[in-house]
């Protein structure tokens, strides 16, 4: 039995090493809650708070940061980040962005991609119509510049919890 454990440990250790070697870009997803509050001037303002005490109807902002922690430059235009619209949430129109990125969406689980005007689905009456933001299933960003060693950038989008 001890032999098997050691063998397993060896496999796991080597897997870890391989994984480390394959991750020159560090990709981190984080979420915050968008809270509306009334400031001292009595005006409504929005702020980002920790995603705690989230109940249906509330707005969330997801951020995906990517950093080149390897020793080589990542090719310009090669970074494509794909994020599904999280379960039980709906994507909020025009909320996806990120500096130096082009954004496209999918309404079919990531098969076909397009800008909001290009995404057409068949409506209830059988006629094609432009898809609503709440029908998006995936978001995809293409980062145009190269990412030099040590550089970091991020993309973001907002959703509402159903």
């Amino acid at each position, binding site marked *: 039995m001890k032999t098997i454990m050691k063998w397993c440990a060896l496999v796991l250790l080597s897997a870890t090493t391989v994984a480390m070697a394959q991750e020159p870009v560090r990709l981190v997803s984080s979420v915050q809650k968008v809270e509306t509050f009334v400031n001292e001037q009595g005006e409504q303002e929005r702020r980002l708070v920790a995603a*705690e005490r989230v*109940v249906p*109807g509330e707005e969330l902002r997801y951020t995906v940061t990517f950093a080149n922690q390897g020793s080589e430059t990542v090719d310009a235009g090669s970074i494509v980040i794909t994020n599904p619209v999280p379960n039980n*949430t709906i994507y909020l129109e025009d909320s996806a962005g990120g500096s130096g990125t082009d954004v496209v969406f999918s309404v079919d689980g990531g098969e076909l991609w397009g800008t909001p005007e290009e995404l057409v689905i068949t409506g209830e009456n059988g006629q094609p119509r432009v898809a609503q933001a709440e029908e998006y299933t995936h978001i995809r960003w293409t980062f145009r510049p190269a990412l030099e060693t040590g550089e970091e950038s991020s993309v973001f989008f907002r959703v509402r919890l159903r």
Partner: protein
Amino acid sequence: MWPLAWVRPSDSIEDSLPTAARQVPRPVIFSLFARLFAYLKSVVEARAPAAIFFRAWVLTYWKQGFFSPISRPTPGRSRTAQRQTVAATDVDAHAFGRTSVRSQEPGKRSSDRLPVSGSGFSTRWDLGHFQNPRRTVMSRFKRFGLVLIAASLGSISAQAATFTETDTVGPQGTQAGTSISNQARAEFAINGNPVSEFSNTEEFLVDERIQVDVTVQQASVQVQPSQTQRIQPFLITNLGNGQETFDLTVLPNVGGDDFDPTFAANNLVYRASGASCAPSDIAVSQQFNTGTDQLDLAPGGTILICAPADIPGAAVDGEVGFFDLRADSATAGASAASPGDVLAGVGDGGVDAVVVQNFGRDSDQGVYVVSAVDVTVVKSIIEVDDGFRSGVPNTPTGGRFIPGAIVTYQLDVEVDGTGTAQNLSIVDDIRDDGTDVLYVGSSVVVNGTGRTDLVDADIVSVTDVTPATGPFAGLPVKRITVNFGTTSGAPTVNHEITFQLEVQ
């Protein structure tokens, strides 16, 4: 109310895993596995933060060969290890597959379920489970199991009933306790060589919103004095996103009204058996005792409650009586909450609960309106014509009651009040045995319009009847019937009926 969550069959350990851990492609599983190993390794080497507690556990078991499938925990190990063991066995207790879990104190018999053969390791990988309040309660359950069982038996003897929803208005947003997870994927190239990577899986649990709606289903109920069990229907809806228990309270003494409707002892209300409240719903089988019974409603679940009240006999037309029916969340702390207050750890599955309404409750008012109606009839002789004089009797111009004189009677009918007189008809019997008087045929005039005596569509009929009772019992009479039909007293209605008799 979180205790309901852990008896739900679907609530398994797997549910609390990030979705991605179940669905990710194989390379990701390798990657996760690799990370797990790295983490365990760092724990053993005491590199990872907040791992001291866990490290003690891992080391203890590692030394004892716990991770070997055939080993078993032995008495006399450290207290820390004991506590972790309890948490680990929750996997079994959770599914209620085994009730043999007893005290884990040193020296006593421990459960044989601890090493879940080779999979024992994998059930322990998620440290987050150790902070799950559900598990803490399960541990307590085992420790004080007998006490809890005794307590629950006690509550059964109180015969408190729980009423569940009979209909639903649909989901109220994402169910409390649902895990919302996100994982991004990146594809890129270095020197033309394609690489693919996943981000961490970001996860949070949806908290519970406590919100209830009570809506009276009838703007007002028209009643008459002394009526009993007049029903006001109320619809109770759980507008929260979690399973929630509510208490119901009847408040008959609200202000601003003229009388207080009275309810049976314990302020009994009833569950409707259909889509509306029927008198047959006021039955023991439908009874809800507001003092002891509770509602337990799924998100969006509704139940129709029939509240029957008695109307005091002293109430008069136009008076109103109010009462409130209130539903209060039974979740601990909700009764003292303000809108937006957070109740930590008491939501479904141990998530936090956010209270939407003041005191976690809602109420609506039932209104009873007394709608009595008065019908008065005043009979008078307005003219006597004796062939010499014609006018009001006993005046200089009035005729005398001599044989052959024609006497004109008038009935003034008044219908007054907010209520409605159903099928109002005025009946006058004229003695018809050849003595005293004789009815003058077709002399009935209603509101200035002459009427025939025939029994027809016309509102007047004159028939030959021998009444069994009354002043003319057993004597033949001419019965004058004027049928006004259903007549509302608002506004006040007046009718004028005249007819003629000949003095014999």
